[in-house]
């Protein structure tokens, strides 16, 4: 290994985050959960739909957070995994007449395999080079979905329309509300799984690799296995998010999964705080609502306004929502002492 290469790999790709700092305290978690359960009862269907999308993107951001914040690998290709998940669900529902809830694990497993396989060649790359390789995956995906060979299944450029599920057991709630609670349940399950994963032996292995790859391998960690595993888990969760997204939006088309989506997810992760799992929902809120706010300020310059807002966030709170949370925690601590 040349000296230059060592210098490059030595530079910490991601600031080390201790694992306890990756989650919220029990009280805060429960308050957040209560809020997520109660709010939909009092708002319009449209807001419920937006909240559903909020959870779905939060899942996708969370997946990226495990990969980048956990194992220190970059990815600009999350939109590709999201697309595979979305198409898997859509195709199974529309061509296979399979229940929507059952399509999600399938989407997750297929994406896990896909991500695991993609992780193999990605092993040789790190930092910006890995980001570029995944970028290629994101640009290729919309075109692959248009290929004539798959057209019978994917609907080609026209995409596929998906039927929205009704609430089961005759529950007196709208389709939107049911889908929201369904998504919430899936999100909570995956969140708990992710927190446990990062606190487990595998999670510690991820973080050891993130902090120093050479030291990690010296400690006996199978670097190649855990790096690809991180890719697989991240892709799997993104796939489930994609499947939920297809059901909520009721439509899949190649144009919905372009590189813009991958960059949005990356942006959501940075704004939420790299390596801080609860930040995913803040990051998701940023990528859903801030463009709308920017558009409200100026239609012609919405992109520029968005840029300014993003710049302000990065400049004022470079560690994203995590930083805000830490400051808030210290303030509360002081108040308690007084």
């Amino acid at each position, binding site marked *: 290994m040349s000296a230059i290469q060592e210098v490059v790999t030595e530079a910490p790709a991601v600031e080390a985050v201790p694992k306890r700092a990756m989650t919220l305290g029990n009280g805060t978690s429960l308050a957040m959960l209560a809020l997520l359960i109660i709010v939909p009862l009092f708002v*319009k*269907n*449209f*807001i419920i*739909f*937006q909240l559903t*999308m909020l959870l779905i993107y939060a899942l996708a951001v969370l997946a990226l957070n495990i990969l980048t914040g956990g194992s220190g690998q970059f990815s600009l290709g999350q939109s590709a995994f999201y697309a595979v998940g979305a198409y898997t669900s859509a195709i199974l529902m529309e061509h296979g007449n399979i229940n929507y809830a059952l399509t999600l694990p399938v989407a997750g497993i297929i994406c896990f395999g896909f991500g695991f396989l993609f992780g193999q060649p990605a092993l040789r790359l790190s930092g910006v080079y890995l980001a570029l390789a995944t970028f290629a995956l994101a*640009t290729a995906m919309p*075109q692959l979905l*248009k290929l004539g060979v798959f057209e019978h299944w994917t609907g*080609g*450029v*026209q*995409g596929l*329309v998906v039927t929205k599920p009704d609430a089961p057991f005759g529950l007196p709630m709208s389709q939107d509300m049911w889908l929201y609670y369904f998504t919430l349940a899936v999100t909570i399950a995956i969140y708990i799984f992710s927190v446990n994963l990062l606190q487990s032996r595998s999670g510690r292995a991820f973080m050891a690799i993130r902090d120093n790859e050479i030291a990690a391998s010296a400690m006996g960690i199978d670097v190649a296995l855990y790096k690809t595993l991180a890719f697989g888990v991240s892709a799997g969760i993104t796939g489930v998010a994609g499947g939920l*997204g297809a059901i909520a*939006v*009721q*439509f899949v*088309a*190649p*144009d*919905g999964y*372009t590189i*813009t*989506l991958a960059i949005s997810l990356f942006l959501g992760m940075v704004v939420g705080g790299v390596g801080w799992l609860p930040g995913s929902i803040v990051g998701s809120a940023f990528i859903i609502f801030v*463009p709308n706010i920017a*558009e409200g300020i100026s*239609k*012609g310059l*919405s*992109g520029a306004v968005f840029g300014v807002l993003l710049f302000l966030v990065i400049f004022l709170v470079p560690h994203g929502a995590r930083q805000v949370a830490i400051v808030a925690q210290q303030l509360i601590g002081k108040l308690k002492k007084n």
Partner: protein
Amino acid sequence: MLSRQQLRIAVFSTAVIAFAATAGSALAQKKYDTGATDTEIKIGNIMPYSGPASAYGVIGKTEEAYFKKINAEGGINGRKINFVTYDDGYSPPKAVEQARKLVESDEALLVFNSLGTANNTAIQKYMNSKKVPQLFVATGATKWNDPKDFPWTMGWQPSYQSEARIYAKYLMKEKPTARIAIFYQNDDFGKDYLKGLKDGLGAKASMIAAEESYETSEPTIDNHIVKLKATGADVFISITTPKFAAQAIKKLAEIEWKPLHIVSNVSASVGSVIKPAGFENSQGILSAAYAKDGADSQWDTDPGMIKFYAFLEKYFPEGNKLDLSVVYGYGAAQTLVKVLEMCGDDLTRANVMKQAASLKDFAPDTMLPGVKINTSATDFAPIEQLQMMRFKGEKWELFGDIISGELSH
């Protein structure tokens, strides 16, 4: 003879009866759905103001300016138009979010001229289940004319397939021995067109010597053109968007291939295709049109276009008259205004669809002479006529009759 008092009573009672009659009928007629009131009609719209298709955002801006003009002139039957337009960045999931915002949060009466085939497909099921009109969608896909399955969705411009059929008809008549090379964009637009051509040629589809497709991400299409030339075809059909249409015209001249060249209507713009490709390279190219081209001097004295230019000057000075999107937005907005006028005081969503489906020989200012909008309960394709044209000198020369590309024929 009636006494003075009797006469007075008679006059008075007649007046009362007359008043009651008119007032009664007026009250009975005034019907509103969400989004319409005595003073306002709320119209929703979704456009790609940002993202890969942002050039089309001009359509939304033109429409906004046109409704400003209508409001300045007193509105529609006294009601002002409140035009709420959102950006979807050409992303279908975002289009769904914006459509739901328009319907559930802003409570618009209808969604008008939302742009993009995939984006409209994404919201079609939702709009139809909510029974909110998805009126005059800005896409040339053929599937919008489906009143049986989607009674709340209606197209506006001629479908790509009907335009392609017109070329097929022309070729079978004028050049029955032609060997056709088709060059198309690999997306819904290109494929819809290709299907139209093949359907139009029918049993004579063997006339097609070669098909070649390109991706919009390709920087140049030169190698495709060279490959098509090698097939020895003598007709070149270019189903391309403006940038690639111009590249193709240039390349054909460069390699001295002189087939009969047909360019799809989306790329028939003098300003954005022919001029950059060079007038000398474009002589004799064929295309078809339904709207007048603002770059064409032959319309300078046309009363419709004079109105259009006056509108641009007063309400939309930043609008470029050479941009076909501006002409498009003006025509579409004018059609909507016509429908809302026909609705009178019955501004329910059902009546909007009913009136939109009863347009008879309506001709917006920017349509070619003879092209008329006709719809019915079973025909949700407003514009179905086009006219062939040949490029000569520095402008298009229309020739032949106005042809209908109706799919049923």
